């Protein structure tokens, strides 16, 4: 814990060298107006950020390609050379997985109580004194993997992969079996063909990786064996998995989970974007087929008159606007609130903090649905405002046309409402974080500033704010990305609203929709436009990726990892 207190000062320094925003550097010109200065600094930071992003990413890509080329070249050389120079078991390893391992092992001299077994007249005939501990565990495991995958490929993968062009398929039909009186269905399902093929391709990729790894590794143990160095026995291998190679043991199952439940679905989703999988082509009764870039054209080109194009632009604009508004309001609101609660004037700060935190603790599907009922056209808020005469007053000045405030039923009002309600949900988080940070700021920073004659405002703008910005930078990025995909707030609050705009209605969207909620509506609504939903999903990913890349090339996050170890 001591260390975490020391680090802020060091980070503050690294910040100052980068962006010239340290308290010391600003000191000579105290007459400069703090807000303006901060804004200018922010702009400068964004400019340098962009510049650095393009330069850095350019260099990264260039270096990446050079590196990739070199490593692929070196890898191929290794594989070819070890085939030429290896002995016959190594050569056979190229055909049969782990074949060489049956021949490599550590020479073990038989011992009794730690001493080699010796006999009176040297070696007794036919009695072994030494044997080889061959790597039978690796060899048999690899053989099992090879047999398994080949069987799987022939029996299950090949039939599916051969139909992957999604043409010439057997129609799906159901026949009532006369004997059992049950409906027996048969035929191809394009959905399953695609899904199985992707699973098979992922397995094949893993298979190829294992193939090359075992070749390289086998060659290594051949050399070790030939030179008389130590070769791992099966027991050594197991021991290694709990010591030097422990990371393999602990990462295996989690990575397997990620591959099956994250990577396979993502690949499937990307493939769906290139098919016409929608309500008219729902498996198993009907087939969908590959359509190339048609869905992307429908989504982006202005020549298609499906309405997707205009709605997409509008939804995308609102998504980005929403992400900015939601992030900024919660961020600033949280900081302001934490400062207010942290002030010396506050009595019972813990109690107040608890009050605000309760709003996060209540599940969102409860609190947001309640707010939705509260603000609906005939909800309590409107009833109360009506009783107090606010509604008739607003009507008289022409602010609203109907006898209620359309908080969640007017395309413009609803956007303001969700932003404000989101503040209610979102800024206690930022408040908690800022409170934590405020407690961590080393007090000697303030003390030295006070001795130098800095006032309260000066200390706030020169110490507190830079400090908070520095620490919460990554959180800010993360919350921006989270807001782009903020399903809960938008979906729950606007689920009572239905659009009157025909263009939006035909593509299953609402004015208040984000990309994610639109996507969800398409998948669950009457249209089942999975193909277009996938296109939107890909777009949401692209936007998040751009934002994250922009932000992370600027911060030197990865280099700081080992500072405190």
């Amino acid at each position, binding site marked *: 814990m001591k*260390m*975490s207190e020391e*680090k802020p000062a060091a*980070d503050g320094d690294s910040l100052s060298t980068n962006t010239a925003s340290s308290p010391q550097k600003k000191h000579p010109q105290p007459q400069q107006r703090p807000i303006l200065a901060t804004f200018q600094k922010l702009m400068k930071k964004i400019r340098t950020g962009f510049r650095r992003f393009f330069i850095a990413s350019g260099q990264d890509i260039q270096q990446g390609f050079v590196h990739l080329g070199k490593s692929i070249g070196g890898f191929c050389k290794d594989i070819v050379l070890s085939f030429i120079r290896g002995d016959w078991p190594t050569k056979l390893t190229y055909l049969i997985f782990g074949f060489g391992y049956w021949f490599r092992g550590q020479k073990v001299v038989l011992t009794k109580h730690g001493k080699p077994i010796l006999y009176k007249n040297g070696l007794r005939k036919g009695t072994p004194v030494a044997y080889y501990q061959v790597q039978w565990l690796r060899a048999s495991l690899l053989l099992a993997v090879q047999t398994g995958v080949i069987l799987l490929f022939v029996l299950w993968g090949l039939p599916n992969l051969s139909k992957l062009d999604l043409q010439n398929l057997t129609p799906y039909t159901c026949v009532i079996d006369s004997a059992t009186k049950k409906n027996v269905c048969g035929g191809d399902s394009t959905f399953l063909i695609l*899904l199985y093929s992707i699973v098979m391709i992922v397995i094949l990729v893993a298979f190829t990786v294992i193939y090359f790894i075992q070749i390289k590794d086998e060659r290594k143990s051949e050399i070790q064996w030939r030179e008389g160095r130590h070769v791992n026995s099966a027991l050594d291998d197991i*021991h290694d998995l*709990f*010591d030097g190679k*422990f*990371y393999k043991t602990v*990462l295996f*199952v989690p990575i397997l*989970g*990620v591959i*099956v*439940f*994250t*990577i396979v*679905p993502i690949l499937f*989703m990307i493939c769906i974007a290139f098919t016409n999988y929608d309500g008219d082509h729902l498996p198993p009764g009907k087939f969908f087929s590959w359509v190339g870039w048609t869905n992307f054209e429908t989504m982006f080109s202005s020549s298609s008159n499906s309405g997707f194009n205009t709605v997409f632009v509008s939804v995308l604009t609102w998504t980005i606007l929403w992400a900015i508004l939601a992030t900024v309001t919660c961020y600033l609101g949280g900081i302001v609130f934490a400062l*207010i609660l942290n*002030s010396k004037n506050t009595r019972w700060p813990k109690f*107040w903090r608890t*009050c*605000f935190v*309760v709003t996060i*603790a*209540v*599940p969102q*599907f*409860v*609190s947001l*649905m309640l707010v939705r009922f*509260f603000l609906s056209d005939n*909800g*309590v808020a409107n*009833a109360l405002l009506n*009783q107090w005469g606010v509604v008739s007053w607003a009507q008289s000045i022409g602010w609203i046309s109907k006898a209620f405030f359309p908080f969640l039923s007017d395309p413009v009002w609803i956007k303001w409402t969700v932003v404000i309600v989101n503040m*209610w949900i979102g800024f*206690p988080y930022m408040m908690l*974080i800022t409170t*934590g940070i405020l407690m961590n700021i080393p007090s000697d920073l303030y003390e030295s500033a006070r001795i130098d004659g800095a006032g309260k405002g000066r200390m706030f703008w020169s110490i507190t704010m830079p400090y908070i910005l520095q*620490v*919460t930078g*990554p959180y800010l990025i993360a919350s921006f*990305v989270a807001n782009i*995909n903020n399903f809960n707030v938008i*979906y729950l609050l606007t689920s009572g609203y239905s659009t009157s705009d025909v263009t939006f209605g035909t593509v299953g969207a609402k004015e208040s929709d984000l*990309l*994610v909620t639109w*996507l969800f509506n398409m*998948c669950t609504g009457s249209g089942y436009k999975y193909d277009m*939903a996938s296109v939107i*999903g890909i777009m949401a*990913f692209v936007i998040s990726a751009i934002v*994250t890349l922009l932000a992370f090339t600027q911060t030197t996050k*990865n280099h700081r*990892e*080992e500072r405190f*170890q």
Partner: protein
Amino acid sequence: MSPIEKTNLSKEPASQPSRPAHRISEHKANLVKKNVAVVLHNVLIGLMAVLWLFPVLWLVLCSFSTATSPSVTTFFPKAYTLTNYLSIFNPNGDTANQFPTWFRNTLVVSSLTCLISTVFVLQVSFALSRMRFRGRKSLMNVSMILGLFPGLLSMICIYFLFQYVFRINDFLMRLVIAYSAASGLGYLIAKGFFDTIPKDIDEAAKIDGASEFQIFTRITIPLSKPIIVYTILTSFMGPWVDFVFAYIILPSGKTQYYTVAIGLYNMLNRSLLSTHYGIFCAGAVIISIPLSVLFMFVQKYYVAGITGGAVKG
């Protein structure tokens, strides 16, 4: 302390007794002013707190209200009753209200999810934080990129994976797997914590002959109690508040498989809203109280994780 400061300090107390009378009254006025400022400050905070607790308060009020639909004209209910709480615990064959079953389902799902994902997260964090191996950086980058894909679409595909590839018929098992299988991706906060444990400890243990497995179980785990508590509690709370993924994975209409979140959300259907709104509120209050207590407990770890992880990388 410099000599100049010392003289300054010694001067001040000496000048205080000789303060003129009007200065004293000014001092008093300042005191009053300050008190007023304190009171105003706290009243302002209090007002904000009331505004913040407004919906929560309304939730509690509605749960005791005799009104069965949210279309009411007054904030405070006209009459109070306990019927909602009674019917939540005694559904009496109401298929739309099986709170005790849902509670049991969610408890099972969240306990198993919590167990699996805590183990996964700790394993991944240990490997990525305490060990150095080829491809470690790439793994971290890939995991960051994977986190950017919208999970909603994946969930739809996962539903079909369960349906056709794995053929798991137990819906609660499906939920457990869907929640916990990819939980290794959420390693960042725990890794940030592990990064702060000095490497010297590991090295000392290695010199004494400890294997990495022993370092993990005997050193890192005992030293990381706070982050383990945090991981356990957050993964336990997940299934209680999530409704989107459960909505996709669980079959519609089969209420006996619902979790609390789905069951309660289902009560807000158009057809059920006018009869089940009070019951919804009562159920929401019942699950919100333990969740709030848990969250109060977790919040400091959450803050430490975000702020610490942010600086430490």
